[in-house]
């Protein structure tokens, strides 16, 4: 089992979600987050004074998958999430040791 954690552009999220559902993904956890990468945000002005916007809004997707689904999911996120510009986000993968369904204590792939 692998956990896919993707940080994507908010305006790309709907498209990515639709593509993932099309792949047969059954569950996902989504949060609105803020952060910055190498670019470190930029500046805006209020009442004529500049201020920094260093944390930009992103959407974070978390999915725990059977290993065979990982590559198609990564492809779908990249295909639907890439605009080619700075700020498209990143995908992180983690090994997952165990998954447990709280309702009936199923374990492993059955719990996903």
């Amino acid at each position, binding site marked *: 089992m692998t956990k896919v954690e993707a940080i994507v552009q908010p305006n790309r999220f709907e498209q990515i979600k639709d593509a993932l559902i099309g792949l047969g993904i059954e569950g996902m956890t989504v949060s609105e987050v803020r952060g910055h990468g190498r670019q470190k945000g930029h500046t805006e002005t209020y009442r004529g004074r500049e201020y920094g916007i260093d944390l930009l*809004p992103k959407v974070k997707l978390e999915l725990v998958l059977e290993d065979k689904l990982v590559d198609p999911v990564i492809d779908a996120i990249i295909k639907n999430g890439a605009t080619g510009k700075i700020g498209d986000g990143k995908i992180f993968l983690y090994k997952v040791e165990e998954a447990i369904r709280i309702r009936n204590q199923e374990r492993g792939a059955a719990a996903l």
Partner: protein
Amino acid sequence: MSVIAKEGKKLSLSEKVSRLVTRLRDPEWRRYGGLLLGGKALGIGLVLLIVTVVSGLLFGHVYAQTGTPEVKAADVVNPVNTAWTLIAAFLVFGMQVGFTMLEAGFCRSRETVNVLMECVVDTCLCGLLFYAFGFAFMFSHGNGFIGYHWFFLQGAPATYEATGVAFLAVWIFQFAFADTCSTITSGAMIGRTGFVGDLLYSVAVSGFIYPIIGHWAWGPDGWLATMGSDGHFFSSLGMGFHDFAGSTVVHTIGGFIALAGAIVLGPRLGRKFKRDGGAPMLPHDLTIAVSGGLILWFGWYGFNPGSTLSAMDFEGIGRVATNTTLAACAAGLTAMFWAYMSSKKWDAGFTTNGFLAGLVAITCPCYWVSPTGAILLGGIAGVLVVLGVELLEYLRIDDPIGAVPVHGFCGIWGTLSLGLFACGKYGATGPTGADNSAALKGLFYGGGTQVLVAQIIGSAVITVATLAVAMAVMLVVNATGLLRVSEEGELYGLDLHEHGISAYPEYVISALGAPSGMTQELPLAPAKASLATTKPLSHIAS
């Protein structure tokens, strides 16, 4: 008594309070204080007594000397009518608050500052334009198509026409109307219009389209107003176009300029329509939107009853206010039930737009219909607005707040409804009272089709002319490339792109950015540190 020892120095408030508390514990200080208070009360009482007695004497004396002053009718009528018109003007101006809140609530949070700015700046622009030439085009004498006197309010009489209302009181009343029309327009264009583009088309709306087309119906010699009378357009009809407070002149013109804007702009990025499997973009604050709708309703009590320009027509004012209320009540309910039939939910957005639709519809016929008629025609408007929203959805026209169905479509319905519901009892308002000698009678009251035909002609002419001119204006502004913001600016949000700040920089997570000095106060602050230290675990992928 140590506190008292500090006397002579300047004491702070808390020192004074503690000194007072100390003194109140001392019976001698209490006696002294009581004496002081009693003396002061006695003094004030004496002064009041003297003022009453002396002024009474003086007044009586003067009155006895001059006798009863001779008061002409105009000395009472003109101030009373002017005061009434001004009260109504201030109420109508208050509708700007309602529009601002309604539009801000129905839009997404990322374009809220843009909505606020458009409503404020439209008002400022409209004021200056209406001073320079808007009022002249619309309300001065000229020909049937345009007025050409009183530019920059020069050469104006003391009172406007035969109303007996001070000229500048009429000006501010009509400015508030023009401002309403101009603000309606921005509602359908939210979320994608560049700020400079907004300024450009607003100049066209408040300075030219509204005043010139409005002159046809409301100008002293407008060709639709004089229609049917001897020597004017279509004299064989024998009936002019009637629009009491502006279902057509304000709302249809505003609504159809909005339609032209929404068509030329195209939908917001990412807006999918119902038949493409999509749905409207969600509003960001229904509390603000619905409260704004109710403030508009309140402002309408200036809009409709004030349009008598005459407090002397007191029966008319009462009837108009009641009809306005009943139409809104009926329309709110019919919109709610109609929407419930398809969605099985009691929809707040449709109910709010429903009572607004009722208000728009009753604006034209409010003087001439009975309360029952107002309920019927308002109720129909409530259904129409829901159907209108569905129609725009089908046509793939993105109108974020529903300005076109509410103001455009229901403005037409309200105007035509006069031809059906005019009850045959009421004629024209006037500076000293109503003149019911030539009462309007609609089809349902046995008056035949005369009024209806006049209303259809007026409504059709103004609707078509507005749409044609507005399309031309929007296409020209669009050709300069200023009407719609860049794709990047739209996705980033108009607030930051055009105005440099979001409406809720501190506490709404999806709002972009916060002043850098504030980030430590945000609950998200620790995320910055953890994100910075997060490194991709690339070995897992390999």
